[in-house]
């Protein structure tokens, strides 16, 4: 009885290539789409950063070295509100903890040792991790699980390289363009920053996410605002997360690691 099952049908090498080619095409297209969208987001980051009081070089340095949208907006947001730059830096670092977590997950797939590791590490962010996982899934869905790791790596690097390029280009354009803009409050840019945070927060609260903890953190931060220096309320909210996460309870949400 003939079967299409891959295990009972050892295909010639050309068949592997035929299976890989459409996977690669799809991943390349998705990577470019994501990079283009985040590049446009980078333009708004560049503009808001300069409008918040950072100069063009500081803004460009953030995108090149920090290279993590949430953290960059976190630092700029604290500084814009009149907070100490170090409080902004700490906020950015705490927001960047998740990238370390992604790295733990990605390490076996990327197998980046030696001199490559410092360069690969910079690319470990939300989008590249998501695309690595999507690439693996793509290969499995195509009935070629043996290509999963190759597709995962391709998704990671295609997205990472395209995104790093367009993210920094977009930042530069936004930062230079901001010098010709009117005052940030006239344009409502001071509301665009919390709106950006809200958009980053929402996916983490869907599907049984920790809504109660989020509300508690927001309440603590606002309540503390009149009494502590600007920038500290957000760090106090981080403490809420540490305390709630430390003790086993149901507030932490259903899916702990996303």
């Amino acid at each position, binding site marked *: 009885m003939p079967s299409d099952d891959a295990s009972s049908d050892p295909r010639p090498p050309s068949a592997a290539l035929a299976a890989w080619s459409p996977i690669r095409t799809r991943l390349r297209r998705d990577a470019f789409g994501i990079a283009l*969208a985040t590049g*446009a987001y980078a333009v*708004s980051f560049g503009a808001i950063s300069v409008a918040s*009081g950072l100069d063009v070089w*500081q803004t460009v340095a953030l995108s090149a*070295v*920090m290279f993590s949208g949430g*953290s960059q907006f*976190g*630092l700029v947001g604290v500084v814009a*509100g*009149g907070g100490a*730059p170090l409080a902004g*830096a700490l906020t*950015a*670092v*705490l927001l960047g*903890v998740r*990238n*370390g977590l992604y*790295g*733990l997950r*990605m*390490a076996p797939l*990327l197998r980046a040792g030696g001199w490559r590791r410092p360069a690969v*590490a910079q690319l470990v*962010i939300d989008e590249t991790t998501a695309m690595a996982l999507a690439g693996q899934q793509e290969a499995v869905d195509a009935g070629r699980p043996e290509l999963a790791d190759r597709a995962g790596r391709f998704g990671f690097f295609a997205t990472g390289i395209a995104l790093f390029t367009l993210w920094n280009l977009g930042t530069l354009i936004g930062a230079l363009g901001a010098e010709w803009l009117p005052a940030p409050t006239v*344009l*409502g840019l*001071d509301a*665009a920053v*919390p*709106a*950006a*945070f*809200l*958009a980053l*927060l*929402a996916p983490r609260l869907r599907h049984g996410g*920790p809504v109660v*903890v*989020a509300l508690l*953190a*927001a*309440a603590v*931060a*606002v309540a503390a*605002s009149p009494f*502590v220096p*600007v920038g500290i*309320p*957000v760090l*106090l*909210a*981080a403490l809420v*997360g540490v305390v709630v*996460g*430390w003790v086993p309870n149901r507030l932490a949400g259903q899916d*702990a*690691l996303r």
Partner: protein
Amino acid sequence: MTLWIGVLVGSIGCYLLKLAGLSLPASVLANVRVQRIAALLPVVLLAALVAVQTITDGGRLVFDARIAGVAVAGFAVWRRWPFLVVLVLAAATTALVRLVWPGS
């Protein structure tokens, strides 16, 4: 100058976290507490940033046109509109409210 220190400390800190992720043994993830806290940190920080940036200014409670902008952004996020649309709607709404009620 202190702004540069903040930019550099924050940037290097964020980079070292990424490097640590690729370098540490995966067994770190086995700790349930680490998992829970790491998953909660972005949520509590982002929630606090939304609240603080919407209704405070320089450490004081201030209720102004930003609330309208963020409310519209909330609607757009709920409708799952694209990120840039959310940002533009928030800014445009706030700018419009200020145009109609100067000083808000």
